[in-house]
């Protein structure tokens, strides 16, 4: 059966040409194709990995931002609180000082009034003394003029002074 019995010539042709083809294809086709595919696959894998990394970094950045925002907000609240405290303290301080100042001024006024009073009293006393002298003078002069009436005048003057 020739159909099932390989022809020697065809085996030789096939062997030689297939080996040649295999080497030619390896050099001019399979190597460039396989390395091309491999390097592209590597690049794609790398690109995917770096994309994922970028995504992660992005997420990291976002969470950082959020953290910063929270911190900033907290800081702002703190500052506001501080400012409010400071204002209250200042107001309280100012109030205290004002009160003190007012007290002191009242004190001064009181002292001034006392001084004035003392001076007025002194003036009054002097005036009284002068008036007394004047009166005494008048009395003396009337006694000298009318004799006897001056006692009533002294009496009355003294009465008046006492009433004052």
């Amino acid at each position: 059966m020739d159909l099932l019995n390989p022809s020697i010539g065809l085996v030789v042709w096939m062997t030689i040409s297939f080996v040649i083809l295999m080497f030619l294809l390896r050099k001019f086709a399979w190597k460039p194709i396989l390395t091309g595919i491999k390097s592209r696959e590597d690049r794609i894998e790398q690109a995917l990995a770096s994309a994922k990394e970028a995504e992660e970094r992005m997420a990291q950045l976002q969470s950082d931002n959020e953290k910063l925002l929270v911190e900033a907000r907290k800081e702002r609240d703190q500052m506001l609180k501080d400012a409010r405290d400071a204002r209250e303290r200042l107001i309280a301080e100012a109030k205290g000082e004002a009160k003190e100042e007012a007290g002191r001024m009242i004190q001064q006024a009181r002292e001034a009034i006392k001084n004035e009073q003392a001076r007025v009293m002194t003036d009054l006393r002097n005036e009284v003394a002068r008036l007394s002298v004047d009166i005494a003078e008048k009395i003396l002069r009337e006694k000298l003029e009318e004799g006897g009436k001056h006692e009533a005048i002294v009496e009355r003057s003294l009465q008046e002074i006492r009433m004052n």
Partner: protein
Amino acid sequence: MKKAIISGLFGLVALLMNVTVYAAGDPGHEAMHEATHEVVEEFGTNEILHHISDDFGLHIGKLSIPLPVILYIPGEGWDVFSSNALHHADAHGLVHGKYLYHHGKLSVAKLDAEGHPMMDESGHPMEAMTEARLLNVGSDGVFYNFSVTKNVFGILLSFLILFLIFSTAAKGYKRREGKAPKGLQSFVEPLVVFVRDEIVKPSIGEKHYARFMPMMLSIFFFIWLNNLLGLIPFLGGLNVTGNIAVTFTLAVMVLAVQLVHGNKHFWGHIFWFPGVPVPVKLILLIIEFIGLFTKPFSLMIRLFANITAGHIIIMSIIGITFAYDAVVGHTVGVVTSLFSVAMFTLELLVAVIQAYIFTLLGSLMLGAAVEEHHHDASHEHAH
């Protein structure tokens, strides 16, 4: 014997058609049966056998393209002539005064002292030498046929096509490095990636597969392309992968590579199977040793038989179209034409499946040869 098989197959299909006609109640079916037998011989068996066998010269339609006939005759040396000469035999049936060419078979004639061919009792010229084939190589009475036959032409044509397609596609990777594939490149790339990721890598393993990629890619595309070339009508009836010499060579190459790359683990499993008692080791030695050769043998037969069978069936159905066209009329021809379309479609599928199977099983053979020793622990326990 092969003739008997093919006429049997052809006859069976013809019989089925007959039954159909008989059921229709044709009174003349007896006479038609006679006529059918004649056309079976004419359109069927001979034509089919001629198609699936190798041939000197290429016949594209009615055009006959001569190819060189290259012969080596032990004791006489080389002889080269055009295959056209084979069609111009002299009155004695001789070509070039010493060759006999009958039914596509070339032989060296037995000549008497005057240079005339010697005839046997039935009046046929006697053969002195027949073509050397694998089972009679080196014996007396053989000559060696290194002609560029139909199949050698097919092999060279397919090599040219393969080289043009894949070297062109490969240029794309240099010219447009790092860019998406384009044109022929994007046709070739999924196929190459398929062979790599679905066939070779899983069978051989991540570590060693790269070494065998060029061989397995070449085998896959060679088989696929030739399966397809064999399906193109009127292209000289190429039947490269349906020729046992071609599948034999491919299988032997895979075996050779397997034996060359076989590691200690591989040989250990063949000659001294680990983990079993000594008598079993001896039995396994015989079984494994035979198994070494049955695998490539099945590779050879599987591809050859599938492609040849496909060609025979298609040719049979086409033959029936003509046979019944001559005997019954055009109606049956329409039906059988539809059959042949279905068969052609099936064969397109078979073309790629057989390429896939050959590459897959070849890869598994190579994978077994380079498999790493990872059953160490279990073997040690078994000892």
